[in-house]
């Protein structure tokens, strides 16, 4: 009895040690990344938050203080709240459009038997090889008053005067959509790859039409990929900088460029810090909320 207890405790000790060993290996692997995240992300966030509580005095840049006046200014000034809602609106529109456009493409890519599949994926990724600013420059040549689109429209005779495309919300949405689409397609496609084709056939066998099959089988199964792609797209849009500046022009202010202006054009670090903190927090809360909603939905559908 005692011997078996002793043996038991020995076994459990060994097991514990083994777990301890695993734990330290895990710590070894996680360590550098943790340090990197702490030093490279958390510390700057803390500093940024501290800055956001300081006071801005023209000519002195930043005066140390403990005040919430920068946050109050943001929520009470319609110029800044408008920039926030504009950013939110663009992010939601872009995310919805991205999902609508990405899903069929991702499905086609995941299900294709073509020997050119790798080439197709390469073609999809290819735009990512070019920086955002360069791609925006491409759109500029397309959207200008004498740009390709306007010249073409007038040549065909659809319009007689150039229509304003540059420096509009439309241009910004198209520009960001083009930047984000490959990410979303790839995220959804990778999830679709893992879904057995047999479940689709089963649905068809049981009498579901294509739309019912997608709605009741494919979409719920792809939900994790859709959620990941949407979150990705949403965060990228909320924080977009180059595209809104280049295609939105000076009068279309989104949050990313707003942060930059505070630091660079006004030397107003405390307010710039507050704006970036608001942007970060809002993005985080909305993303977490969306994630929670999807998770709940996902659990129900399974």
């Amino acid at each position, binding site marked *: 009895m005692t011997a078996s207890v002793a043996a038991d405790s020995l076994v459990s000790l060994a097991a514990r040690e083994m777990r301890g060993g695993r734990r330290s290996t895990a710590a070894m692997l996680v360590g550098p990344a943790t340090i*990197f995240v702490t030093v490279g992300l958390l510390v700057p966030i803390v500093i940024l938050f501290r800055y956001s509580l300081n006071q801005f005095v023209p*000519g002195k840049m930043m005066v140390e203080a403990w005040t919430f006046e920068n946050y109050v200014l943001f929520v009470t000034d319609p110029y800044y709240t408008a920039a926030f809602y504009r950013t939110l609106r663009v992010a939601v529109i872009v995310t919805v459009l991205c999902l609508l456009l990405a899903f069929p493409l991702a499905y086609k890519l995941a299900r294709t038997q073509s020997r050119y599949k790798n080439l197709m994926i390469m073609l999809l990724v290819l735009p990512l090889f070019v920086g955002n600013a360069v791609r925006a420059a491409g759109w500029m040549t397309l959207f200008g008053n004498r740009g390709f689109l306007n010249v073409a429209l007038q040549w065909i005779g659809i319009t007689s005067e150039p229509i304003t495309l540059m420096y509009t919300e439309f241009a910004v949405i198209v520009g960001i959509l083009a930047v984000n689409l490959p990410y979303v397609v790839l995220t959804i496609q990778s999830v679709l790859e893992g879904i057995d084709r047999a479940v689709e056939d089963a649905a068809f066998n049981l009498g579901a039409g294509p739309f019912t099959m997608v709605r009741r089988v494919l979409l719920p199964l792809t939900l994790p990929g859709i959620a990941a792609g949407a979150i990705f797209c949403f965060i990228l849009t909320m924080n977009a900088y180059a595209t809104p500046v280049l295609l939105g022009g000076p009068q279309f202010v989104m949050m990313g460029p707003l942060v930059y202006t505070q630091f660079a054009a006004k030397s107003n670090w405390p307010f710039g810090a507050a704006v970036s903190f608001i942007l970060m927090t809002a993005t985080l809360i909305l993303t977490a909320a969306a994630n929670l909603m999807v998770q709940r939905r996902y659990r129900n559908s399974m």
Partner: protein
Amino acid sequence: MSNKMMQSRISRRRVLKGASAAVGLSALGAFPVFGQNDKKIVLSTWGGDYAKLLTKHVSNPVLAPQGWTVVNDEAQVTQRKAKTVAEKRLPKGTSDVQALTATDIAELTALDVLEPLDLSRFKNAPNIIKTFSIADSPLFSPHIYSGKVVLYNPKLIKDVPKGMDSLWDPKNQGKVGIVDIQHVYTTMAAALVAGGKTGDFEKAKKALLDLKKLKPRIYPSNEAIAQALQTEEVGLCIMWKARAVQWQNAGINVLTIAPKEGVISYVSGFAIPKNAPNKAGAYAFLDGALEPSVQEGFAIDMGYNPVVRNAKIAPELKARIGFTPEEEKLLVNPDLEFLAKRMADLKDFWDKEFKAG
């Protein structure tokens, strides 16, 4: 088992140690060691063409023969200003020379971070044109200048403009372009058009709101308006004469006039931080930049005017980049005191009222 565990623990510690050492080292690496060599000058400047031309015309031909080595620290001016202010408390800063504009000097004056310049250390000081004299603005050694002129496309603007008020002329509605990043100078121009001085902010505001009613097109940058001028989307704006020269060279159909209200000067130059590690080198650089050969080089390569009288500019170049003696009389320096105090207000007004919807 426990042996193995020990091993893995040790290696984890090693990894952690190694990682923290790496982080520490990289943090150290972020602060370059300056001022160790007393023949080294750290020049903090804008990057791009300007930095290249400083190396080509000042650092290599003028300072290198005197034994100086110039190291460039290139960044946008706002970052450099912030850095200079942040370093205020240090006994030794990280730069010897800061390339700034007259309006930057305004901002830094109140912060007490710049060295008042000792005129006796300038061989070239007596040659400086009076408008830009160091004696009048003792924190700033001028380097090159241009001025705000009215730029127009003769094909679109039939009546030759006389002044900046042509932008406010309803006849020219739809042809006027404004550059967003030129908000400071555009506001000062509006003050002049309204009959005030460059620092009359209230007059400027009223004039800008009048201009807004005519719906001028607003472009983000000089490059963007250059494109709009080329495609004839707009045909009238206020712009640096030096830029106009560059665009004429690029084949854009534009002419310029010196506005009757005044030619607001743009002066770019240098200052020495109070805690510069190598002040002797800094003075050598500031004085070297005033050499006639340097001034001539910048006129040819960049289209900016010499700030010294003894630089020799070919007459046809002078005719394109420079100002006639009558036009020189129109030169107006920005009200630096106003800018130092109201820069943020000015930008707020520009963003929230002038540009908004």
